[in-house]
């Protein structure tokens, strides 16, 4: 049987917006709410260049990545054509206005994926010591 983890209430997520759910390991899970109060959950990472989807604009059942405007389907994490790619999605359920995520997925799903590195840590140190 699926173990569910309570996350928040539906109204804690802005309409046509999202919240980030922090995890012990791996990147955040982004939970989205559309204008029909449906809730969706994706790894907070665009399949294109790793941008945080939780920061995108939500419309219909899609989110536009804030980095390069890829459109990602909220139901399945699929990038809209002509772009190709898929973001891991998470099982989510809403009961009496409370949002739950699958506890096993929250703990272990897609924990290997990371954000791109930016800033001085990405500087190459091999030449010119």
């Amino acid at each position, binding site marked *: 049987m699926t173990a569910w983890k309570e996350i928040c209430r539906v109204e*804690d997520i802005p309409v046509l917006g999202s919240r980030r759910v922090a995890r012990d390991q791996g990147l955040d899970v982004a939970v989205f709410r559309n204008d029909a109060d449906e809730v969706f959950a994706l790894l907070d990472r665009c399949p294109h260049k790793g941008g945080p989807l939780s920061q995108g*604009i939500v419309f219909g059942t899609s989110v536009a990545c804030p980095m390069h405007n890829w459109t990602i389907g909220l139901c399945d994490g699929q990038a809209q054509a002509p772009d190709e790619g898929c973001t891991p999605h998470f099982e989510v359920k809403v009961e009496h206005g409370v949002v739950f995520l699958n506890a096993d997925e929250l703990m272990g799903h897609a924990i290997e994926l990371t954000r791109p590195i930016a800033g001085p840590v990405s500087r190459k140190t091999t030449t010119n010591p």
Partner: protein
Amino acid sequence: MDMRTPFTSGAREKMKLVMVGNGMAGVRAIEELLKLAPDLYDITVFGAEPHPNYNRILLSPVLAGEQTLEEIVLNDWAWYTDNNITLHAGCKVTQVDRVKRVVIAQNAAGETVSTPYDRLVIATGSNPFILPLPGKDLQGVLAYRDIADTQAMIDAAAQFKHAVVIGGGLLGLEAANGLMKRGMQVTVVHVGDWLMERQLDKVAAQMLQASLEARGMQFRMSAQTAALVGNDSGRVSQVEFKDGSHVPADLVVMAVGIRPNTALAESMGLHVNRGIVVSDTLQTVTDPRIWAVGECAAHRGIAYGLVAPLFEQGKVLANHLAEFGIGRYLGSQTSTKLKVTGIDLFSAGDFMGKASGRPEDEECEEIVMSDPAGGVYKKLVLRGDQLVGACLYGDTVDGSWYFKLLRDGRNVADIREKLMFGESNIGDVGHQGQSKAAAMADTDEVCGCNGVTKGAICKAIKDKGLFTLDEVRKQTKASASCGSCTGLVEQILMFTAGGDYSATPKLKPMCGCTEHGHQVVRDTIRAQKLLTVGGVFKFMNWRTPNGCASCRPAVNYYLISTWPKEAQDDPQSRFINERSHANIQKDGTYSVIPRMWAGETTAAELRRIADVVDKYQIPTVKVTGGQRIDLLGVKKEDLVDVWKDIGMPCGHAYAKALRTVKTCVGSEWCRMGTQDSTQMGKDLEKAMWRMYAPHKVKFAVSGCPRNCAEAGIKDVGIIGVDSGWEMYVGGNGGIKTEVAHFFTKLKTAEEVLEYTGAFMQLYREEGWYLERTVHYINRVGLDYVKKKILEDAPLRQSLWAQLQAALDGEPDPWFELQEAKVDTRQFVPITTA
């Protein structure tokens, strides 16, 4: 015959859609329909030719032996099967009974096929015009229209020597070129004084003719054909002219024009006038169950023959067949960009200029560059301050730019002297000044903005079957950013897919969610006093329930700029930077740029910044180009505390708003300075910060004409002179460097504030979202802006007052989070531990 499918419970019986014609325009419409409503219809297609849909434009390369018939098929047999479309290929529709709603056709075996319809699409295309000459029915006399004609020409070229092509237009020259490549001796017979007179002026046509003659093509110009003479076996043997001369001919190809194929429509009693007359929804005006699309349809009196408008029609038609009912076809403006045997030609608009002899062209002026030996000729036709026509030979890379200027009706007075030398001489470009796509290697970068190579574009066009510039932009992102490589991309499209593609819809919708353009949306928000994003979508019948990432920010901006303090600002309709009031970086962290009035700071501010950098372990501190300090790599969780600890106002470096006001030191210190530029900068910044605009706005103030603050490339640049201030507008240091226009000379600092504020308010009210001041001014004309701001003092004062009223009491989003409607939940992730 009962074609109805048995009624099963729960499933509505599908409607029957029948299409007469299996060509490019009609099948594209079906493809669009399947995307929108795949299961709405049982679809049947009748095609007179025994082939699936193929790319007719590429028959010339097939004739020339450069491509095969298999390569030009667009939808193979399997496509019809996969989509459950019944295709009757090689089946000619003989009759349509509009009362019983049945299409009756005859197949190759002479059997009758009849299919009932609920809705009918006529896409019968066009027929070649055959001159009524004696001998026109002899063997070896052909038109040039379809695969059968092409095959007959290929067969003839294998057996015979002499070919005559009647008609020196595009199609005729392509046919002549193909036959020549297949080893025939070809004479082109043309009734006009010069070739392609509908696309070229005399000079360009003569250059074209000379170039073709050098390759062995022969011409009989101004020649009237009298008869085609046959030999004993009934095959054509020569062409006779009215002056008594003649040329040998084993093959005669007539390429003297096409006519919309309306015979069937006329027999059905549909209204026909230069084509089947259709409304903006492509519906015939006679029968609401019947639509017509493509070359057979006459929309507002025009039967289009180019691919792009026909595909545009197909899109609208599909929308209505899918019962969405919201698209309208408003006509297209077309240009001609042709590839004849490797020669580049482009023409658009009234390219003849004065030489047309029409009274309205008397006023035209021409700018001409002619280098016959170098094979380059360019003619630009101007009426007043507008470009109205262009004819290019040999170097066509700027064709699309000229076409855009022409279509937009842009006032070109300010760039007139540079116009001839092309777009690359107006500003910087990102493709190393390449002008000939054909000369580029596959690995060469075409689009510098998005790093797209020529090879990648060619591959996408071939693999995905792209036809229009928009499709290429969408698939490859080439020319989708700054657009300076548009001409190259069009050339590549032309070489790879054939034909011409420079036709565009007259009115560009804001995005796919609506048919309305930016101006209409703006005007409606004002006229109807709409105050919410949802209200706009509802009132203007948006196609999508809550828009998309492109239209929502635009609509939200129009609301708050049109109805300040009344409209409801929707944070979820703003791009993330304006929602979190910081600039998102590639790793998901943010950058923070505090406001540093006119670039002046203090030890206390610098100390606080240094402390914040230590406390929050901010990895990078960088001085910006706008004389401010950028803290990069701030975690979202830290943003609110960072703002508070720095204790300086929000710099809006992330927003479509007033960003920096760059200044030089000015008269307070500088020995050259004539004015106190730093103070002027502070005054401007304090008056106009927190001002949202269609796009980012940058000011600069220099204290003397040495202009150390680089005011010439800012949206508003102020330069101090001994007697006062010079004001410049519309500069831009971005993708294309645009030098600002001199606007006016002012005496006092108060005037600088008033004029700048009024100009900003005009731009805020009239600029389209994401339109920088330079593009706004280009669209409306500098004279218009001068009229409003310089000549109309009451309007200027009222605009300045409106801006001040709109900004009065606006919150600083870094400190008055609630008033600025900042959703603070976004800064804290949910934890479940």
